[in-house]
């Protein structure tokens, strides 16, 4: 199946080289979880602080059990707390 992976800020460097505008279509096997994707692209799980699946926040406890589906958009953002 294919999903769109988006990585923002300093996470963008983990995207495949063909990525455009912080987004890349990637091929996944059925049953791939959110955390599997994060690991697959060698992103530190703590750096992928905000995980957004189809526009909705996925909390830490659900990242192993939430599986990707064809056509999903998964976006990853680092934490922002400064001011």
């Amino acid at each position, binding site marked *: 199946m294919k999903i769109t992976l*988006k990585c*923002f*800020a*300093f996470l*963008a460097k983990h995207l495949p080289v063909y990525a455009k*505008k*912080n987004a890349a279509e990637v091929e996944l096997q059925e049953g791939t979880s959110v955390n599997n994707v994060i690991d697959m692209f060698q992103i530190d799980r*703590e750096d992928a*602080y*905000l995980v*957004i699946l189809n*526009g*909705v*926040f996925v*909390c*830490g406890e659900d990242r192993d059990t939430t599986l990707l589906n064809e056509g999903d958009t998964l*976006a990853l*953002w*680092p*934490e*922002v*707390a*400064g*001011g």
Partner: protein
Amino acid sequence: MIDKTAYRQAMDLSDEQLLHYNAQIMLPEIDVSGQQKLLAAHILIIGVGGLGTVAALYLAAAGTGQLTLADPDQVELTNLQRQISYNYAMQGEAKVNACQKTLNALNPEVSLATIESSLHGELLERTISQADIILDCTDNLKSRFEINKTCFKYAKPLVCGAAIRWEGQLSVFVPADKDSPCYQCFHNPDSRLNQSCSANGVLGPVVGVIGSMQAIEAIKLITGAGELLIGQTLLFDALSLQWQTMQVSPRTGCEICGQRV
């Protein structure tokens, strides 16, 4: 220009106030009644750094009745790249005093109170309980969690801004609204992260964008204009100039906002 005579009987704004705030009174969503609400409002700004100085300037300019500024720090040279209520000659002054001077010069009508201290515990509770709306403009997670908790305890709307490097984040939490999550619904209190702009770097206009948007949401909260950013967080990546909306629901079992009845 608004037609002064048409409004005069229905309100208590002076001619000078009508002129001063004309540009926003012309907006039908604000109008004279919205301006009166602004003039009666008390906003607490916690942290007058990159976010707080910008939000404070816009809220003072808009004619907020009372602003309380809290910050323990002094103005340093490195602040001047982004903290635009301060100028070169203010180095070494308490930030709250320097900010008060700037805001007073901008709009002497605003009543300004200052607290030269970090707000924690009892002082935080008392200060929050006295304000109508709270702006979290701090630079650390520990303060953010405590402010969130206290705002929910006293049922005060909280406008949370954050910025670092090229990234920004904006959320509004309204305890009285059942659809509103809280900061802790999607932030981990055990996070290793403790970010300061001085240690990580930040582009001045990025904090300016987020601080300005905090002022927008505060004005909307006070006047009732438009739709608030409830149940959503806005994320901004300045490097690609992209915005993303993230939907967040109140988390089941959240120890801060899960207790609402």
